[in-house]
């Protein structure tokens, strides 16, 4: 039988190559596992890496080529909301499915929701809500927020602030800072946070904006802990290269190495054996999302896009990070988000890394479908 082609749209060259590579590795491992077990409905999965260059026009051009020449119907990607936006247009036009395991902008399943688009990861609302839950549970009173000055950063901050107000009305947001993407010197911002007297700092920063913030804050005398979107990442922690600057801070994500359970242990072992490194951060996310997609295809019993869409809607998948359920009304998966503090000693790395993960249940962080702004998915 024919193979099922799955195109992975990631930046495989350029500055964000590292992120793209990691996502791709996760998807590739998923295909490996699936194929080793006889494929999906007897069909092998063929992963086609596509270098999106993080440019929508390039991504869609290449995708068009795959659609027109190879008949590819399934696409996934995790980096760059703009790529997702462009892919949505394409998905409509050619009737195909695009799922993401990394693009977090809430609007993608909100105002911009589309029948051909599935999000199999947390969005800015749920991700922020998980961190807000942690902050509220620790009883912090003074909270500062710092984020990149673009839609993602703003959405993340708004989500966090709203959830925190709800969970702990006593908590006060003493500083709410937006800084340009690619800021090099965080000193003035750090001083502002220090002046505000915050006990904890929320940040949705990623890339160099995360590492530089953490790295520069400590020597300037900031004692507060950070509650971060992406600190569960060995990549960020090695870039900071200062364990003291990260220990005690917390990260949140839908998959972590430290999620308890034998399923996860087995997965980590298998992955390590196959690839030679751990399925940290992005790899695990992409793996799980792809496994869930495979479940949907299995359930549909065919590779027909409409059948898979219908099968996926409402599907539950119990991977290794809790139960994930695909909500039919907006195609946003309902899943737990895990939080974990960074600790010095861990079984994985010599440097500091996240400790035991705590689950924040889906019910606690979900945004009801009516509140997302999604006007329905009728084709």
């Amino acid at each position, binding site marked *: 039988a024919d193979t099922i082609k799955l195109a992975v749209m990631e930046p*495989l*060259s*350029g500055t964000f*190559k590292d992120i793209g590579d990691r996502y791709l590795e996760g998807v590739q491992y998923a295909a490996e596992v699936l194929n080793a077990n006889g494929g999906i409905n007897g069909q092998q999965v063929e992963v086609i890496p596509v*270098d999106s260059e993080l*440019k*929508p*026009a390039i991504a*869609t*051009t*290449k995708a*068009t*080529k795959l659609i*027109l*020449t190879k008949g590819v119907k399934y696409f996934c990607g995790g980096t*760059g*909301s*703009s790529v*997702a*936006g*462009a892919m*949505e*247009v*394409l998905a409509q*036009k050619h009737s195909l499915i695009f799922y993401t395991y990394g693009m977090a*902008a809430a*609007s*993608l399943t909100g105002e*911009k929701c589309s029948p051909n688009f599935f999000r199999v990861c947390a969005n800015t609302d749920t991700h922020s809500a998980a961190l807000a839950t942690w902050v509220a549970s620790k009883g912090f009173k003074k909270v500062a927020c710092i984020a990149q*000055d*673009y*839609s*993602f950063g703003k959405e993340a901050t708004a989500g966090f602030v709203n959830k925190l107000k709800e969970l702990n009305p006593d908590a006060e947001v003493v500083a709410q800072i937006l800084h*340009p*993407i690619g800021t090099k010197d965080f000193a003035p911002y750090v001083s502002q946070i220090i002046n505000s007297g915050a006990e904890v700092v929320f940040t949705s920063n990623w890339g160099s904006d995360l590492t530089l913030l953490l790295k520069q804050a400590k020597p300037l005398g900031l004692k507060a802990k950070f509650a971060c979107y992406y600190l569960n990442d060995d990549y960020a922690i090695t870039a900071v290269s200062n364990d003291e600057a990260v220990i005690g801070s917390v990260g949140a994500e839908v998959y972590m190495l430290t999620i308890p359970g034998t399923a996860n242990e087995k997965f980590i072992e298998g992955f390590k054996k196959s690839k030679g490194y751990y399925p940290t951060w992005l790899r695990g996310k992409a793996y799980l999302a792809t496994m869930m997609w495979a479940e949907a295809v299995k359930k549909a019993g065919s590779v027909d896009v409409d059948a898979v869409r219908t099968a996926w809607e409402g599907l539950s998948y119990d991977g290794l990070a809790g139960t994930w359920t695909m909500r039919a009304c907006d195609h946003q998966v309902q899943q737990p988000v895990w939080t974990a503090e960074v600790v010095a000693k861990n079984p994985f790395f010599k440097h500091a890394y996240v400790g035991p993960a705590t689950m924040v249940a889906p019910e606690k962080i979900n945004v009801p479908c009516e509140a997302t702004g999604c006007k329905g998915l009728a084709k």
Partner: protein
Amino acid sequence: MMSSGRMQRYGLLLFFGFGALIAMPWVLGGYTLRLLTESIIFSLYAVSYNMLLGYAGLLSFGHAMFFGVGAFATTVALEHIAGLPLLLAVTMATAFTALVGLVVGILLLRVKGTPFALLTLAFNALFFSIGIKWTAVTGGDDGAIVNVPDINIGLIRLNLFDGPTVYFVTLAVVGSVIAFCWYFTRTAMGQSVLLIRENEERMRFLGYNTHVSRLILFVFSGSLAGLAGAFYAVLHGFVSLDAVSIAMTTKVLLMTFIGGIGHFVGPVLGAVFYTYFQNFISELTDSWPLIMGVLFIAMVLWTPGGLAGMIQSAAAWIAGRKASDGAPAEER
């Protein structure tokens, strides 16, 4: 002056070239046709860039600001004005870009040479950061979907989602604008620009207001880039900040240069070559920018005339004589 025999040869060439372009949708596959459509759009973009670089001697590192403005203006116009015909939206976007070009030109043309190059780069960065912040227009980092309406000509409705249709519309509109650009280089205005590059002081003493000439050219070139941007938005049905990024400027620079500055057809060749070649090598290796970079450096070092220059000298070699085209516009 062209001899009539030569005229005829050119005419024949044009005729067959045009015929070939018309036949393309039946020859090429859907994807290659799409690449061709994109090449045509980028040809205009590169031709407009060459107006600045090749003709006026202005090296700009900020051409993407016009390209982006054109693209986003089209998007905004289509989104906010209900029932706006597509070509009207494109025209409005082009006009708007011209306006932006006027303001930017007044500011930037106060300096020349390298400072000008540098400032255009800084302005490009400025436009980009405005783009990030002005989410209402650009959709910020997420980009914006373009609601491309059908074109109504009497009884016929043209749906631009269809590959051949968008190809023909692009060919008709963008192609004729490119043709107009060619004519422009021979008009009084086009020639004045060329002379100003040669010797500006003398031109002033010959009664030319050189500042105005340069400004007109800058605005003209900018609005053409805007038009290219508008079609780019239409073709993709989606615009992101990419359209105003410095990478987009880099792209036009590479295209124009690889094709050959100073030759009218150079940028067109460059745009077509770049589009297909990049498509080809990016499939072979992830380090394709390395190859592009090395190719580019090699071109700068050994064949500064670009592809057009290479073809020209090859033709001259075959003809066994030096090509000597009477038109001053073609020399560098």
